[in-house]
């Protein structure tokens, strides 16, 4: 296990120091605004050109209230709560979520506000911790059981 950099717990990078992480610890929360511009940028980067993510008329035609964010973009944004806390994202070993509710992105400079919180749910003897996230848009959760396993 590499503990020579970063480290959960908010402290400065400490070489060889054991991280002080216990179940119930809260990770620093994150608020992210997802805009139409970001949807276009993500579509290009992820090679996901489904028009429900950029074409308002198409989205409404298939019954959506408006253009919605890629579920995978919401998941990626949510993962930052874990990787910012870890410092080294290479220590995130497992990441999963269900896509339960869309993030509707209006055509405004502010876009859609996504609020992410996370806490340590469990720390195993082998130094792997489970982080449970809560990801909300418009006051409601948009990801089901978003969870990460990390090497401490």
């Amino acid at each position, binding site marked *: 296990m*590499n503990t*020579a*950099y*970063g480290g959960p717990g908010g402290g400065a990078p400490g070489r060889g120091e054991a991280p002080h992480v216990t179940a119930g610890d809260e990770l620093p929360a994150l608020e*992210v605004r997802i805009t139409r511009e*970001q949807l276009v*940028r*993500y579509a*290009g*980067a*992820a*090679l*996901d050109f489904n028009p429900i993510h950029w074409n308002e008329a198409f989205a409404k035609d*298939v019954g959506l209230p408006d253009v919605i964010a890629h*579920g*995978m*973009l919401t*998941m*990626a*944004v949510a*993962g*930052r709560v874990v*990787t*910012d806390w870890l*410092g*080294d*994202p*290479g220590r*995130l*070993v*497992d*990441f*999963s*979520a*269900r*896509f339960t509710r869309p993030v509707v992105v209006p055509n405004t400079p502010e876009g859609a506000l996504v609020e992410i919180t996370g806490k340590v749910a469990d720390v195993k003897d082998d130094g792997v911790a489970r982080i449970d996230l809560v990801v909300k848009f418009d006051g409601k959760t948009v990801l*089901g059981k978003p969870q*990460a396993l990390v090497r401490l």
Partner: protein
Amino acid sequence: MPLDQSFTGRSYPPQTSYEVSREKIREFADAIGDANPVYRDPEAAREAGHPDVIAPPTFLTVINLAAINAIVTDPELGLDYSRMVHGDQGFTHTRPVIAGDVLQVTTHIDAIMTRAGNDFINLRADITDVAGQKVCTTRAQLVVRGENA
């Protein structure tokens, strides 16, 4: 029309290789709004113990999506693509994706089921490097909404 259940257990061998570049990793990190230096700066990545810049945890969606699309658009499977939504997604990393990796994807259909008029298809992709070593396993459930659901 229900999905052809006989597709359960099928595997799709790699069709091509994907070479991971520093530039694509940075483009993806920019797109998800993540400024972490280990996605951009080889020196920062080395300080963190990696041989080169690494990719964000969900980066493999770039090649995973293409592999999924190749399966779900197979006319014999009988999937109505316009009614399909992404139900869930998971990534289990054996190691991070590193710039310079040449990756191959083998995709498996683990299960096909029907519940409450909707079809569900569970896909798994094993992503390996040139040495044949596992880099990541991805799991996705796709949901095809029924005509009356």
